[in-house]
């Protein structure tokens, strides 16, 4: 009985790290960016949202790049 208990305990001690390693894989993030041909999947650019700068840039152009 004592021998079987010892064997049982040893098996548990040996198996615990294996189980812990196996469960460790479950904690990884499964958030993967899947590539779709022709589709941009990068970060959003805040510059894209701003459409009211045409006039300002036009004025700047006239100020800086036109001959004096």
């Amino acid at each position, binding site marked *: 009985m004592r021998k079987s208990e010892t064997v049982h305990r040893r098996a548990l001690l040996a198996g615990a790290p294996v189980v812990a390693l196996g469960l460790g894989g479950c904690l990884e993030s499964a958030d993967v960016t899947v590539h779709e041909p022709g589709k941009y999947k990068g970060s959003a650019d805040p*510059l894209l949202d*701003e459409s009211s700068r045409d006039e*300002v*840039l*036009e004025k700047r*152009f006239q100020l800086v*790049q036109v001959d004096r």
Partner: protein
Amino acid sequence: MARMKFLCDAERCIECNACVTACKNEHEVPWGVNRRRVVVLDDGVPGEKAISVACMHCTDAPCAAVCPVDCFYTTSDGIVLHDKDLCIGCGYCFYACPFGAPQYPQEEAFNARGKMDKCTFCAGGPKEDSSDDEFAMYGRNRIAEEKLPLCAEMCSTKALLAGDGDMVADIYRQRILKRGGRPQTWGWETAYKTA
């Protein structure tokens, strides 16, 4: 909506490289990368022509077409930008680009390519506008500050123009009307073998 374009007037360019220096300084471009460079045709020969070349922000960008990870995007202004987090540094965009605009910093051992870097029309990249992250990765975002690219603003002879394509074309047309279009300007002699 304005469509942003560059135009370098070869008649006015004096090869001062102010545009190159301005760009490199403003964006702290890494060693070995020249977002903008001046190319001289027939250097040393009377009638030499210099032209400042960088990313031309093509309407149908070949770099975007060949990218295996689709890291390129175009803004509503027509500015072609890319996400360095997605870029794998394969070099395909460099092969595809007729202007050699995409470049790669040699930061690692064994000539390993870093992430692609190119002219952004001073529009930064897909990070928060004018943030430190954006500056570190893409350089200054002058468009978000309602300014135009520094290379064109610094051009000493106003050879390099950057802005709405229609406005740039108008200015160039006025210049041609004023000074006349010399046949040597666009290689007429080469095309028609009169030289």
